[in-house]
C-alpha cells in the first residue's frame, strides 16, 4: 500500500511537471511571437522612416536649394546634396557610427562599432530594443547625410568642389559625430534618457542637426565672403518651381525624421507626426502673414521658407509637446525666421546664399528653447525619480531648470559648430584653396567644376 501510494505520488508529480513545462513552453512561444510581431511592426515603420529621411536630402533639399540659385549653378548645388549622400555614408560605415553611438566618454563615442563591427540584426537594447541594430544605424545615417547638406545653402555658388569634400569630411569628424554622441549616444553629456549630466531634450535633432549646421553655415558664409557681384547683380532664384517641389518633399520626408525618431511605431510616433505637421503649417502661416504685412504681398518663396523654418523648430520638440503648443512653436518660428532672413541679414550684410543660418540656425535655436518651455510628461514621461514616478518635463509643467539645460545644449552646439566650422574651413582652404577663380565663378560651378550644364534647351 505504502509503495503504491509513493508510486502514485511520483507519477502525478511527474505529470504535473510535464503539464507545467508544457505551459511554460507555450507561454514562451507566445512571448516570442508577440515580440516578433512588435519587432516587425516597428521595423516596417523605421525602414520607411529611413527612406523618408534620405528622400529629404535627395531629391528634397537638392531641388529646394537647386531652384534658389542662378541657373549656371543648379547642378553644382544639387551635386552638394548628392555627393554628401555618398560621402557621409562612407564615413558613417567606416568610423562615424562608432564615434557617434559607441560607448566612449561624454563627448565622443569609442571604436567598438568601427566598420560596423557587431552591428547586426540583434537589437541594441540601449537605443532601440525592438528593431534590428542595423535599422537604427541606417536611420541615424540619414541624419548624418542631411546635416552637412544643409550647410551647403551658405556656400552655394562659390566653393570649390574639392574644398567642399575636404571641409565636410573634417566637419563630420570634428562637429557632427561628437555632437550626435553628446545628445544621443549612450553616456553622452547632454543625453536626457541615457544618463547625461545635463539632460537636454532634443527629440529629432534641433541641436545636433539644425543648430550645428546653421551656425557652421554662418561661419562658412563669413569666411568665404560674399558671392562675386553680391548686392550689385541680380541673384534671383532661377526656378521657384523646383524649390516648391523640393520644399514639399522636405515636408513629407520630415515625418520620417521626427515621427521616426520615436524609434518605434507607437503612440509617441503619432504624437511627433502630428506636432511636425502642425508646426510646419503654422510657420508657413506666420511667415506669409509677416511678409504680407511687411511687403504687401505673400510670396510662395516665403510660404515654403516658413514651412521649412517650422519643421526645423518643431524638430527638437516633436516627441515632447502636444498639438496646440506645436502650432505656437511653428507660428513663432515663422515670424522669427522671417525677421532673421529679411531684416537682420540685410542689416548685417553677410551673404548666406540660401539662408541656411537664418532658417536652420535661428529656427533650431528657437525650437530648442521652446522645447524646454512646452515639453510635457503627458506626451513623453522622460524624467523619472528613483522610485519610478514621472517628473515634470518643461517650464510650463513646473520644471524651470529644463530651460537652462536647453540653453546649455544650444550654447554647446553653437560653440562647437562655430569653432569646428572655422577650423575645418581653414584646413580645407590650406589644402585645396577656398573659392574657384573669379572666372570660374563667373562661368558658374556647373561648367567650371563639373563640365556640364543643367539646361541644354537647344539640344
Amino acid at each position, binding site marked *: 500500500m505504502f509503495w503504491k501510494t509513493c508510486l502514485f505520488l511520483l507519477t502525478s508529480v511527474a505529470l504535473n511537471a510535464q503539464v507545467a513545462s508544457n505551459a511554460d513552453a507555450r507561454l514562451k512561444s507566445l512571448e516570442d511571437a508577440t515580440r516578433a510581431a512588435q519587432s516587425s511592426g516597428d521595423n516596417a515603420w523605421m525602414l520607411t522612416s529611413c527612406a523618408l529621411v534620405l528622400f529629404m536630402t535627395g531629391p528634397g533639399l537638392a531641388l529646394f536649394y537647386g531652384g534658389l540659385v542662378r541657373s549656371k549653378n543648379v547642378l553644382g548645388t544639387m551635386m552638394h546634396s548628392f555627393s554628401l549622400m555618398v560621402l557621409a555614408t562612407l564615413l558613417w560605415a567606416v568610423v562615424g557610427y562608432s564615434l557617434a553611438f559607441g560607448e566612449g566618454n561624454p563627448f565622443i563615442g569609442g571604436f567598438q562599432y568601427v566598420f560596423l563591427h557587431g552591428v547586426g540584426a540583434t537589437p541594441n537594447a540601449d537605443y532601440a530594443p525592438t528593431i534590428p541594430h542595423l535599422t537604427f544605424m541606417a536611420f541615424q545615417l540619414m541624419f548624418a547625410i542631411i546635416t552637412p547638406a544643409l550647410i551647403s545653402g551658405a556656400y552655394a555658388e562659390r566653393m570649390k568642389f574639392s574644398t567642399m569634400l575636404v571641409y565636410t569630411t573634417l566637419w563630420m569628424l570634428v562637429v557632427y559625430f561628437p555632437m550626435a554622441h553628446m545628445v544621443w549616444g549612450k553616456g553622452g553629456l547632454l543625453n536626457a534618457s541615457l544618463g547625461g549630466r545635463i539632460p537636454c531634450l532634443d527629440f529629432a535633432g534641433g541641436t545636433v542637426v539644425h543648430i550645428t549646421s546653421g551656425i557652421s553655415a554662418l561661419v562658412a558664409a563669413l569666411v568665404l565672403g560674399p558671392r562675386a557681384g553680391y548686392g550689385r547683380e*541680380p*541673384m*534671383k*532664384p532661377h526656378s521657384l518651381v523646383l524649390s516648391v517641389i523640393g520644399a514639399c518633399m522636405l515636408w513629407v520626408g520630415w515625418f520620417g525624421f521626427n515621427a521616426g525618431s520615436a524609434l518605434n511605431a507607437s503612440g509617441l510616433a503619432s504624437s511627433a507626426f502630428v506636432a511636425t505637421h502642425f508646426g510646419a503649417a503654422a510657420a508657413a502661416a506666420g511667415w506669409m502673414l509677416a511678409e504680407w504685412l511687411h*511687403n504687401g*504681398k505673400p*510670396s510662395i*518663396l*516665403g510660404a515654403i*521658407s516658413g514651412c521649412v523654418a517650422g519643421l526645423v523648430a518643431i524638430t527638437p520638440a516633436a516627441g515632447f509637446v502636444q498639438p496646440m503648443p506645436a502650432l505656437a512653436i511653428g507660428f513663432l518660428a515663422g515670424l522669427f525666421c522671417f525677421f532673421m*532672413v*529679411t*531684416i537682420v*541679414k*540685410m542689416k548685417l550684410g553677410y551673404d548666406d546664399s540660401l*539662408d541656411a543660418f537664418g532658417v536652420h540656425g535661428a529656427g533650431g535655436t528657437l525650437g530648442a528653447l521652446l522645447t524646454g518651455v512646452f515639453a510635457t510628461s503627458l506626451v513623453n514621461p522622460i524624467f523619472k525619480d528613483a522610485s519610478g514616478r514621472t517628473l515634470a518635463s518643461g517650464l510650463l509643467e513646473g520644471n524651470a531648470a529644463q530651460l537652462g539645460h536647453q540653453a546649455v545644449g544650444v550654447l554647446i552646439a553653437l560653440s562647437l559648430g562655430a569653432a569646428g566650422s572655422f577650423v575645418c574651413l581653414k584646413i580645407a582652404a590650406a589644402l585645396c584653396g577656398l573659392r574657384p577663380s573669379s572666372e570660374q565663378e563667373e562661368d558658374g560651378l556647373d561648367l567650371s567644376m563639373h563640365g556640364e550644364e543643367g539646361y541644354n534647351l537647344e539640344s
Partner: protein
Amino acid sequence: MKKIEAVIQPFKLEDVKEALKAIGIDGMTIIEVRGHGRQKGHKEVYRGQEYQVDLLPKVKLEMIVASARVDEVVQTLSTAARTGKIGDGKIFVTNVEEAIRIRNDERGEAAL
C-alpha cells in the same frame, strides 16, 4: 522692298498673326526679346532682397514686304497690336536692297 520690325506685347501675337494672315501676309520671323521704352518695370522681392525688373518680355516680328504693301501692313499690324496703354510697342520700317530665295536663287520681290 521694305523690312517691317515690330516690337509688341507677347499676348497680342496671335491677334497680329491672324490679322496679317487675313491680308495675305504669311511669312514672318518671330523673336522673343526683352526690353523697355517708356513703360515702367516692376519690383520683385525674394526673402527681403528687392529687384527692380526693367526689361520686360516682348515679342519682335520681322517681315519683308513689297514696298507697295507697306502702309497696309503697318496699319493692320498697328491696329491688331493696340491696347491703348503704355507698353504696346513700336514699329520700324527700313529699306531692303535684295532678297534671295536659297532654294532656287530667285531674287527681288519674287523671292518674298
